[in-house]
């Protein structure tokens, strides 16, 4: 519409009687074009509205309701909100989620970057190792978790066998998933191992985009490998690192499946995370209102962290 207005204004003084008709038909054509565009977007948007947007809005509303899924929904006001502060499991889940994210994001990032740098070199069997590192990401989580549980089995898993052979006293042996001090470590290790291959591929793409003359210039400037990594690679990978950090953070806040497979949130609440708590409250306790409130907390947590990250990126 604004376009047809401006053309009309531009044609200016020598206006003819034909002008209004022309404007009309142009406007009609524009509407038609828009309709065609919307009709292409519609199927996708409908799906999004029905399966994503609707439930999200519903969950927002539900956070302020009581509902067990079958009986009538009743208004709860801020009940669910106040309940958060008394719910020991929620508080544990909240901090566990923070800890999980705070440890696994930098650790995964470092592993992915390290692997990418190693496997960007011309080493023997490079393609094999690249595939091997990517494999956990595409492998079925269920199968992989079963194997992982076996490997880290406190009594007869190979990891503890090796520790035993290395001379570790059986009394001090980590109990891994069954040990409340080690369960979180186990889950984090699993998460790193599972997703580092994916981010390694992203970093590999980033590395290949770096102008090799920069390394040559650094060579002549007298930089050793570590200094080249620090002063050329890392800054040049800035945008990649930003992307990886955001993706990893969101992924870590939403961690669920590997905990479901390995520890079920236990022992005690030692690996209980927000999404797992949401799942428990919704589908074990059938307290859909309260679980929506937890989901709301998670939503704002992710939003806040992401906004901060985008701000920081813009400053650089």
């Amino acid at each position: 519409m604004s376009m047809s207005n401006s053309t009309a204004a531009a044609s200016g003084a020598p206006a003819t009687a034909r002008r209004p008709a022309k404007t009309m038909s142009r406007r009609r054509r524009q509407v038609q074009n828009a309709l065609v565009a919307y009709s292409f977007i519609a199927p996708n948007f409908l799906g999004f509205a029905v399966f994503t947007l609707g439930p999200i809005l519903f969950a927002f509303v539900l956070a302020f309701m009581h509902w067990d899924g079958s009986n009538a929904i009743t208004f709860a006001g801020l009940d669910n909100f106040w309940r958060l502060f008394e719910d020991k499991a929620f508080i544990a889940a909240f901090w566990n989620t923070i800890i999980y994210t705070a440890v696994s994001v930098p650790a995964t990032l470092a592993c992915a970057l390290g692997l990418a740098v190693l496997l960007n070199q011309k080493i023997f069997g490079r393609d094999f190792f690249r595939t091997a590192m990517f494999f956990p990401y595409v492998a079925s989580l269920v199968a992989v978790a079963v194997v992982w549980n076996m490997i880290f089995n406190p009594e007869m898993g190979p990891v503890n066998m090796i520790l035993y052979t290395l001379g570790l006293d059986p009394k001090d042996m980590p109990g891994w998933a069954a040990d409340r001090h080690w369960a979180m470590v186990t889950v984090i290790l699993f998460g790193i191992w599972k997703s580092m291959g994916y981010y390694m591929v992203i970093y590999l793409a980033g590395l290949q985009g770096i102008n090799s003359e920069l390394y040559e210039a650094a060579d002549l400037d007298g930089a050793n490998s570590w200094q080249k990594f620090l002063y050329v690679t890392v800054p040049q990978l800035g945008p990649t690192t930003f992307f990886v950090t955001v993706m990893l953070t969101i992924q870590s806040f939403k961690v669920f499946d590997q905990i479901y497979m390995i520890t079920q949130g236990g022992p005690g609440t030692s690996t209980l995370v927000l999404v797992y708590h949401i799942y428990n409250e919704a589908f074990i306790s059938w307290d859909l209102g309260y679980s929506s409130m937890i989901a709301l907390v998670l939503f704002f947590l992710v939003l806040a962290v992401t906004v901060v990250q985008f701000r920081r990126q813009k400053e650089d």
Partner: protein
Amino acid sequence: MASISLKKLNKTYGALTVVHDIDLEIADKEFIILVGPSGCGKSTTLRMIAGLEEISNGELVIGGDLVNEVPSKDRDIAMVFQNYALYPHMTVYKNMAFGLQLRKASREVIHRKVQEAAKILDITHLLNRKPKALSGGQRQRVALGRAMVRNPAVFLLDEPLSNLDAKLRGTMRAEITKLHKRLDATFIYVTHDQIEAMTMADRIVVMKDGHIQQVDTPQNLYDRPVNMFVAGFIGAPQMNMLPSTIERRGDGYAALFDGRELPLPAHFDKNRIEPYVGRELVIGIRPENLHELPPADIASENLAPFDAVVELAEPMGSEVHLNLTAGGRNLIARVSPRFKAKIGDGVKLVVDTTNMQLFDRETERSILY
């Protein structure tokens, strides 16, 4: 002291040899320019000197030391890259200071050297900018500055001006020459621009297909090319090459081309010409030696008449380049703008044979030099 010798230097990629047995002695503080067509191995040679490319075979000696296995940073060299290779995330100051920082220079020393270099290059006002906020010419200066601050004994420059426009290139040419005088360092400079080579170099190295063709001062290269490649590569417009035969004339010789007779100057070495009598060879005449009859007082004694047909006249302002045909060959003559010639006209010109070149037809090597 940073004399450099390249002894039978080779670079091979698998079965492919891209640099063949390069022998070159470069004196301390010399300005050496490597020229040659694209892909002839100039950059590869320079990069071997820099230590960025492994030497497949041969020896590289800098300042008396064999440096084949010495890493780049310990060779006392600095390099200016064609695309500048400035660190994009560092300011101009940091870019220049980086090498000194890594070498653990004190903050005061770094500051003094960067300021000094920035002043010489006139980039003091740019020190706090990032490279992406600079023009091509400014980036070029920063790249030079980064090389300068370390006071290296040897500067390596790979087509440093090729990304600049013609005018800026002219200015930078003069500045780099001044810089060389001022810095007292050995310069090795790669270009495929023969004007850069002619104007800046103490000596030029002409390369082709990984082989050195000739090493000499610009003037000698121009006057005494050792083969047809060098003769054709140096000088613009290109030297005219005409197939011809040699015959004896009295106690001298003459070259015959399509019925035209060009007496060879008396200073040509008779012993070298004698074996070619009656044989075909190629004569080379630079365009500036093919022109209208000059006034008698400045005419050379070695003039021979030469008639041709004008195909095209290219006015250059100070002179006109006439594209001609004669005996089925294309030639270029340089005449004064006052010389009137229309397309299709037959014109009577003269050849000044004083600096004429003679080449063997098979080997393409110069018969005279």
